């Protein structure tokens, strides 16, 4: 199930997440700020789906969460306030050194 979104749009959103994090690499960006910056391109995007995309990219190993000592229990930090950065594989993908058919818009 594609969560009510066009498969092409899902790929575009995931790609744009990688591109935005690439701009800041190796620093991290909070999920809320990342999503707001993408609203320019995807005005109807909702946070719940955006969160799933972040989860997907994390499971794929393209992005990683950055937890701080200030977060007593990292699992309790709201998703909007969590920090994410590109992993080494993520930067390779964003730089087009490697390919992932699941994120390739032409496929």
């Amino acid at each position, binding site marked *: *199930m*594609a*969560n*009510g*979104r*066009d*498969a*092409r749009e*899902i790929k*575009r959103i995931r790609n744009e997440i990688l*591109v*935005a994090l690439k*701009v*800041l*690499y*190796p*620093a*991290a*960006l*909070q999920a809320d*700020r990342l999503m*707001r*910056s993408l*609203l*320019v*391109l995807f005005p109807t995007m*909702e946070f*719940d*789906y955006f969160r799933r995309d972040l989860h997907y990219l994390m499971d794929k190993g393209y992005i990683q969460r*950055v*937890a*701080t*000592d*200030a977060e007593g229990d990292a699992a309790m930090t709201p998703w909007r306030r969590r*920090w994410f*950065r590109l992993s080494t594989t993520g930067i390779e993908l964003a730089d087009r050194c490697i390919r992932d058919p699941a994120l390739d818009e032409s496929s």
Partner: protein
Amino acid sequence: MTSMRDYEHRNGRAERRGTLGRGAARGQLKRSKARVDSRPVERILPALVLAEMRVIAAGADKITTQLVAELDERFDVAKRHGVTRRRLQNYLTRVRQDPSEPVSAASGEHKPGLDEEASWQNKLSAHRRRQVSVAEILDNTFGRFAESKPELWEHRAYLMLVGQVYERLATSEDELSTDELIKLGKALAENRRVEARLRDGADDGTEDDNRSVKPGEMPESLAKSVRQIYGTDLAPMVRSADGDAR
């Protein structure tokens, strides 16, 4: 649960029955017309909402206006997504009659047309152009970003600021056009070059504005750069960021 009166109110019928002022009812009709979205319902509503509605529709004997009104009330379909109750009723009736109706647009046969593709490419290239200049500005303002390691979390305020500036510059096209942003990026880059030349020449004891920054410290030229970008003084912001971080 929605009362019948609320339901009529939203549909403008109250005006005919004389239970609501004309102006108010007209105003409501006008607003609801302005927000109508012409795409297919399954392309507008979120999948979770659609899925829940389909379950409810499957369990109902008939898709009545009352049921549609209740669903609208519950999921805020008309106001939030611009889908009229009539369209919602038609969709749910269709779904109830034929459960194989696509759950969402993604599982349907939608193929983006040339116009849609061209419009996306235009939007993307405009965004990319802006993103590139934002990246240049961030690079020139903050230098190379430190890796976000928890043990260096005194960087938090610094990274927060970078994130804020990125979001602000990448999205506020109304306040600062992409062309202006590109000019600004070039001006900052030029400033950096001049500063670098001065620094090279100042190794013999001249005051150096951009000495190397230790991890967790703000570059001294930051306030100056932000003033150039926003026309405001960053001093109070830097103080509070420092206070938070230490």
